[in-house]
């Protein structure tokens, strides 16, 4: 996104990474992407008792162009999917996605013609948050975990390296159907 992306790897880059991560995680602006039941819990999280302002996140941006976090709060219908992707594309980099609730994560109980079976078919997801709907505390937990992730995010050549490693790991990973063990 700027000069720091062009730094060579080494001590300077890792220091810039830490500084950038710290700054980024402390002022994440979520886009208002309320869809269904989870949106009400998301609003509750922003309101008085749970007070998302403690994490520098109380400003829900109406415009995706000013937001860097999309909380997909609720079931995504086939009709909504293109809209969701467009909103995601309008957000500037770097951007993150929390898939809030089981409907957004996997289609949940609505395994039918109308609902997209997991928002990860449309946009890359950073945090999957289970629950129907998740409690505000769970959303806060997801947000704090996302903060950790943002803090550890790489820049420049390190980011390319991290992406390559992640891809290799994903290619080697066993398909779900071939995994054995307890169903949990």
């Amino acid at each position, binding site marked *: 996104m700027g000069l720091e992306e062009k730094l060579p790897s080494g001590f300077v880059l890792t220091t810039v990474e830490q500084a950038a991560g710290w700054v980024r995680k402390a002022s994440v602006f979520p886009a208002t992407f*309320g869809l269904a039941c989870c949106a009400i819990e998301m609003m509750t999280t922003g309101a008085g008792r749970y007070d998302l302002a403690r994490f520098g996140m109380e400003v829900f941006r109406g415009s995706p162009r000013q937001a860097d976090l999309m909380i997909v709060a609720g079931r995504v219908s086939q009709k909504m999917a293109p809209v969701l992707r467009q909103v995601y594309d309008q957000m500037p980099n770097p951007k993150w996605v929390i898939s809030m609730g089981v409907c957004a994560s996997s289609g949940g109980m*609505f395994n039918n013609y109308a609902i997209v079976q997991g928002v990860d078919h449309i946009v890359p997801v950073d945090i999957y948050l289970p629950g129907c709907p998740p409690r505000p505390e769970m959303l806060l937990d997801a947000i704090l975990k996302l903060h950790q992730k943002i803090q550890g995010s790489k820049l420049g050549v390190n980011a390319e390296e991290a992406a390559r490693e992640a891809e290799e790991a994903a290619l080697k990973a066993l398909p779900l159907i071939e995994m054995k063990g307890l169903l949990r």
Partner: protein
Amino acid sequence: MTTPHATPRATTEGTVYTVTGGDWDEVVESAVKSDDERIIVNMGPQHPSTHGVLRLILEIDGETVTEARCGIGYLHTGIEKNLEFRNWTQGTTFVTRMDYLTPFFNETAYCLGVEKLLGIEDQIPDRATVLRVLLMELNRLSSHLVCIATGGMELGATTIMIYGFRDRELVLDLFELFTGLRMNHAFVRPGGLAQDLPPGAVDQLREFIKTMKKNLPEYDKLATGNPIFKARMQDVGYLDLTGCMALGATGPVLRSAGLPHDLRKTDPYCGYETYDFEVPTADTCDSYGRFLIRLEEMRQSLRIIEQCIERLEPGPVMVADKKIAWPAQLALGADGLGNSLDHIRNIMGTSMEALIHHFKLVTEGFRVPAGQTYTAVESPKGELGVHVVSDGGTRPYRVHFRDPSFTNLQAMAAMCEGGQVADVIVAVASIDPVMGGVDR
């Protein structure tokens, strides 16, 4: 003028520009060149003040809305179809997620329908009915609070939003205590309720009523007389009685036109005819009237809740007929609320017949005689009707919800056309549509 962001398209009514973002100056410039100020604005489906994923298509001339249309279906979940593949008891799990602000109304309406098909309305224990009323009235409070809170926020009044969610949390605390869940409870079941109130519930309820009686006047102080609030709300979203009747609008929208139509009075269910409460109306036909009606309804709900507490007699909360009563005995375990281990041990260990019976009821469910029924309850938004059809099987053949949000939202065009753009938001907020209910 053509830009990648505003492509012109010739129609029979002149050039139409489709604006997809981009440089505003260019958009304005091209609009000026077409020498009229008619712009078609697409609000939503992702918009901070359209109450969820509602899409409004407005044709505006300057600041005036000349035509308004709704685009809905962005939250269509296929719940009605899903219900056809689950048994009757499991149905409550789906219907509770329709209008997610009024879960108990959806559940009760559905269960009243199933009970009517089964012909067991008279066997529902009194305690279950009283608790249903209690839960519905609590739910009316929480739904109206969200309506007022988000409606206020859409006007730019964030204080009222914080207040509304503060008080809603108090209701949700009670819901969590009673049912184990904050939302989407699936607590009302065909035949009664999933379980009884936990110990200490009534005390906490009394405490809640005391707090609410202190908190409710704050909305009056904050908003009712507030000149800005009144200026934004009065005479906005006008829909008179003729319009309401033609468009089938019910609930606060109809009552703001002066007709005291409330199913709790005119077509009572769950014994509402025995409760003492009033149906508030207004004669202003506008958003402000609807706001005042909602405030008054919350006070009336508190009155009903107080009467419910007095009527709570110990007793069963599920029908005695073991062929219908879902054998749930819930207890708190290490991993949350689940089947009571004692209950399972009892079934598994003591009687083979009990085990078979439990197995049949849980895997197959009970059968409902063929036929159809329509039951309606007065949800916070209006008449919530359920058309349930059975083919004599263990699963619903067809369940159709006549959701008040869906019907009332049709009135949006009538309320908004001819008004200002900013008033569209106020009008939509005063209808209080919940897209989960609209689209289902």
